[in-house]
């Protein structure tokens, strides 16, 4: 589904990504782990079009997307969340989910001006879909609250709901459980598994190894911008190179 070939990203003298080859097969949950500053977020920024590789190709179902603008990539079926929550915090929860569906809509401003049937049908459709997502993520009670006023865990879930609102085939999750308590983390894990059941694909950056175990089919390990290892969660856990470079050195990453 998603294929990265020799993706390199330089920031001045710093090599944030170095010849990264990575494949996310359709309907799989792929984990991406690595120490702080390894280049994980940079990788997601490059896939989602906020940043572009210095060299190399990124392909979505065979089509090159490494130079496409972010809105095209979203409309092509890739959605994302952010490591540091980036909700539209002055807007309501519901509005966040309506904006998430922007690319699905067709109605222009003129449709809205004269209330065309297309406008009304579409708004109804967008609100219905938003209501479904609210329910799925347990946010129905908060629909009309300001997103920025939600408790932290709810904000994280709203970010994921908003990503799903774009109607993606592939979801990129950048540390979706950061700052969550164990119960919330467990529930979010179930949401990720549900993505797979619904036929979606995901690339998940995570520091929480038990969550990786719970949800991932395979895992890539990134270190200093390079892929260090690739395998099933169990293989990765036992890989001596990984243990030395990452797990063994810094047991406490889950708290980061």
């Amino acid at each position: 589904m998603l294929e990265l070939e020799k993706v390199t990203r330089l920031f001045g003298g710093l090599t944030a990504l170095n010849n990264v080859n990575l494949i996310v097969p359709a309907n799989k949950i792929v984990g991406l782990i690595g120490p702080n500053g390894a280049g994980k977020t940079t990788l997601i920024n490059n896939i989602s079009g906020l940043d572009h590789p210095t060299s190399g190709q990124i392909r979505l179902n065979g089509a090159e997307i490494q130079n496409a603008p972010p809105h095209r990539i979203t409309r092509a079926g890739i959605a994302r969340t952010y490591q540091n929550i980036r909700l539209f915090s002055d807007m309501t929860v519901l509005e966040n989910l309506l904006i998430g569906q922007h690319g699905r809509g067709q109605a222009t401003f003129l449709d809205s001006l004269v209330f065309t049937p297309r406008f009304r049908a579409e708004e109804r459709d967008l609100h219905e879909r938003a209501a479904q997502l609210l329910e799925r993520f347990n946010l129905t009670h908060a629909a009309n609250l300001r997103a920025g006023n939600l408790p932290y865990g709810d904000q994280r879930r709203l970010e994921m709901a908003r990503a799903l609102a774009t109607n993606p085939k592939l979801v990129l999750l950048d540390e979706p459980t950061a700052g969550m308590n164990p119960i919330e983390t467990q529930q979010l894990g179930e949401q990720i598994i549900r993505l797979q059941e619904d036929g979606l694909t995901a690339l998940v950056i995570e520091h929480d190894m038990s969550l990786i175990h719970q949800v991932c089919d395979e895992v890539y390990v990134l270190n200093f911008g390079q892929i260090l290892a690739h395998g099933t969660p169990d293989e990765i856990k036992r890989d001596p190179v990984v243990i030395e470079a990452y797990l063994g050195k810094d047991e406490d990453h889950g708290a980061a």
Partner: protein
Amino acid sequence: MDFFRSIGITEIVFQFMLVNSILGLSIYLTLYTGMFSLANAGFMAIGAYTGVILTQNFDLPLGVALIGGMILGGIIAIPIGFPVLRLKDIYLAIATIGFGEVVRILILNFDTLAESITGQEVKLTRGALGITGIPKITETWQLIVFLVVVAYFMIRLHRSRFGRAMAAIRQDEQAAANMGINVVYVKNTVFIMSAVLAAAAGVLKAHLTRTISPGDFGFDQAVSILAFAVLGGTSTWIGPIIGGFVLTALPEILRDFKQYRGIVNGSILLLVIVYLPGGLVNPAGWSRLWKRLRQSPEAGENHART
């Protein structure tokens, strides 16, 4: 109306209040989308001159002049917006001030330029002295109708997919793009809408003031337009209308203190920016101010971060 008269609001003042609230709305569109553009005075000039030339040199009715001015403003906004809107914040402000200056200087020298190209005498913009003797044909009811139409436009905009995209871009441009919003398209379209509105205000105002000259559309005017929106607030479309009303009416109400007018106007703007950062029309801002006033006088010192 007697009450308004008694506090100094004559019909012509009321007409300027209406025109200025339209100007406030024109900059509101760009501010609401997170674009700090000061190009509105330039587009207003384009509208004013186009409109007056159409009514005076071509004897066309005001309605046609209005449409002509709006179309030309919109067309000129297209090639300006595309390169300039890549800039942000203060850089965008400076670039758009530059645009305003270019417009002003082009209008100033338009006749001379046209003469040197055509070889004939041209009397269209009439240089630094500007155009005088313009009939005062804009009527109050026309301004009210126009403002009501624009207000309806604003209401529908905010309830549309496009309007939601505007707000999303203001809050987080990158996240908006990741939601599938074509940021470049939305920004450019809003810039054009803003230009069209400013040009319309220019046409209407030119047929109130009886004279226009390039100096009327300089940096001062650009800042005044910004002040309407900032004083009123940019969280809803009502803000810039109130801002335009207040800042136009106030100098008239305070005409007895003529020599202090500038000071009073400036102070009010300063007070609002400091104590009501969201502008006059902003319930959250008022309740915050109210709380702070009730708590303790010293608490006001820490307002900067709230």
